[in-house]
């Protein structure tokens, strides 16, 4: 019983699917940096607009499924924004006029701006992550890290194998919870609940470790980490598309920061 939705995959060939993953990673990092170097909410707004354009035109991802997939994160961003606004220290600054006053609580303009900036940054992170990882499967990312940036095989493909175990862990977690409920174990009170979660985690980890051991053995049996230099079935080369992507991403980031606010 899997609880994880299927990963988003490109449904049509597109520009970004032909860009190597590390180039997309560089582009994504540029936007990430641009969105956090200033507290002004207009910068992340510009980056989000650019990201939406890139998603629609060049990602090849199924556009109709994206809003549904981002909805939980959207809720998290909304609550993060609300709390950031409510708890902002600028609200205490009596020299600034309050925009909203509710009894003793007052909310100022700068607090709203700072809160929006926090929420919008998370939005930039979410959309750039989609642009970096969405257009190709994780295997290509591992290939790209190893072939283009010379990451160690053990790290890249080991992580990849661990990623394959993750959906099973999610399934095990659900199964373990079901088993406990069916056995009549329903913890009452926070202490019992904590103990229950601990026991559930332990059972899940035992299952995950056993699975990982089997997978590691299977990889060893096929000569992984045999001490010789691996070759690569699929060759990834840096092309003009990569450079174009990086240059455009940097230009967009610079424009987002430099254009008049």
């Amino acid at each position, binding site marked *: 019983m899997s609880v994880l939705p299927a990963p988003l995959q490109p449904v049509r060939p597109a520009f970004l699917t032909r860009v190597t993953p590390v180039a997309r990673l560089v582009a994504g990092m540029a936007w990430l940096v641009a969105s956090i170097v200033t507290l002004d909410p207009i910068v992340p707004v510009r980056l989000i607009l650019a990201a939406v354009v890139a998603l629609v035109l060049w990602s090849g991802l199924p556009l109709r499924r994206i809003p549904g997939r981002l909805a939980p994160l959207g809720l998290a961003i909304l609550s993060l924004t609300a709390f950031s606004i409510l708890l902002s220290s600028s609200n205490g600054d009596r020299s600034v006029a309050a925009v909203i006053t509710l009894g003793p609580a007052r909310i100022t303009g700068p607090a709203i701006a700072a809160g929006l900036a926090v929420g919008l940054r998370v939005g930039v992170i979410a959309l750039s992550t989609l642009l970096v990882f969405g257009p190709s499967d994780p295997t290509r990312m591992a290939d790209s890290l190893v072939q283009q940036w010379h990451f160690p095989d053990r790290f890249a493909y080991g992580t990849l194998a661990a990623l394959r175990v993750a959906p099973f862990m999610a399934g095990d977690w659900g199964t373990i919870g079901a088993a406990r409920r069916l056995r009549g174990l329903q913890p009452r009170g926070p202490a019992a609940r904590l103990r229950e979660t601990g026991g559930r985690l332990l059972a899940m980890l035992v299952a995950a470790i056993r699975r990982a051991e089997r997978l590691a053995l299977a990889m060893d049996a096929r000569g992984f980490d045999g001490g010789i230099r691996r*070759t690569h079935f699929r060759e990834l080369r840096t092309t003009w598309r990569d450079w174009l992507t990086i240059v455009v991403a940097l230009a967009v980031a610079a424009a987002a920061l430099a254009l008049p606010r």
Partner: protein
Amino acid sequence: MTTDRGGRIALESAAPPSIEAAGLCWTYAGRSRPAIEGLTFRLEPGRVLLVLGPSGSGKSTVARALAGLVPHVLPGTWKGSLRVGELDVAGTPARLLGERIGLVFQDPDSQLVMSRVDDEVAFGLENRASPREAMQARVPVALAQVGLSGFERRGTMTLSGGEKQRLAIADLLAAGPGLLVLDEPTANLDPAAMHATFEQIAALARVRRHTIVLIEHRLEAALPLADDVLLLDDSGRQLAFAPADAVGPEAVGLLERNGAWVPRAWQGVEAGRTNETGAVETRRTTEAGPLLLEAAHIRIAYPADESGTHLAIDGVSIAVRAGERIALVGPNGAGKSSLLFAMTGLLRPDAGTVRLRALPRDDEAGEPMRDPARLRAGEIAARIGLVFQDPELGFVARTARDEVSAGARAMDRGRGRDAHDDHGADGVLAHFGLGHLATENPFRLSQGEQRRLSLAALALRPPAILLLDEPTFGLDRRGTEAVLRLLDDLRAAGQAQILATHDPRLLPACERVVALDAGRIVFDGSPDAFLAAPPYRPAAPWRDGVALAITSGTAAVAGAAGSR
């Protein structure tokens, strides 16, 4: 690449090696007793060796030793010698062994490394530094050899269990080893997938381009492929090494006494065996009891399917009565697990209803049927229980004794019982043959012990309805008989049992078979009627799989005891 006699392109592989073991003995680090002991045999190049033995006989260790995982990857103590061709296993680096030897494991989900089929086949080649052109040539040919042409771009996780195992075989063929070691490659598969996998192995065996070592419970399918048989006892000692056609009455007796599966057709060899099955019939509940569970028009969409159009369960209705034992069968992905979860109320169907109730006592009409999703945890536990395919996922306690009493303790909470009362857990453990393990951690028990403990955990307050997901998975004949005997005991009080299983051998131990296909019920009737005309295509694997059937735990155990 060369072309074989049939005109098909075949992959070059290393010449098939001989295997020579002399006094081979391996003890895993931290274990006091060897996993295998004193193996001494010589297998000629190009022959097929079938390794037989009960659970815990070290069959998998033999496979690991041939692939060099023992002693090069796993820690332990090695004695004696094992040679594969001219290579001495203990003295050859694992990487060199890996080029000559390929290993397929039992669990398809934990041996596929990559997420795309072509990457998966290339993985082993990459590890051996194959040039890219060679890989691009070999990958499609290897896939074609196992009938997976055109699957290159598929995700490995979207394949069926049988396709996954054939992919694992393609991985090996691509690397071109001379020795193929297959460690229960069909254990996780439904009968049709098992059949296809055996056909694949048979095709490989016919061309004699590889030496093959096959570890397999399913004797009826495996023995015809074998040239030689290595028989191990339950402590990993070699009982026999002989040509397969020499498996006569004595060998069958040896197998039976050692808890291996033996086809029913051969069982008459041991006098009086089949006659005793009649005794069990009386233990069956002759008339159906009161209604315990009713599921009506259930529909469940796959959780990962956002459009909600692909249904795991598509309009299933089923009524379950006290004392019934139902086999729930169907190919992988037919919806068996979804249906079990829906019956417990833990998975809310997208449409339809599930109603169930506790077992009524003789003198009362019983409680009304209730929606399990609305019951409190304590109330559910008295009404329905689920034993998972992997018992470890269901364990809640640190010792076997606590595991048995945990459920009863939770149910009795607040009824004035002493919290330290073990509720008779020790008696239950003794009955389940686990008395000596009362203080042992459940996670440290063997597979068979874990399975029995998962049943023992439900014995103090047995639920009215017991659901079991692949209850005999990974068990040898003795383990299976023990589980069935315990199920007989639990049922004596009127418990209804539903066994979701791939194993046709269990069908004769049930009164009713419910068969699912693509989320719908395609058959509901007696095992005899099911086996006469299985509602699947191809039907033969389902029909023939039962050739190994045991009629009931009690009978078979009585027979086995009598044969000692």
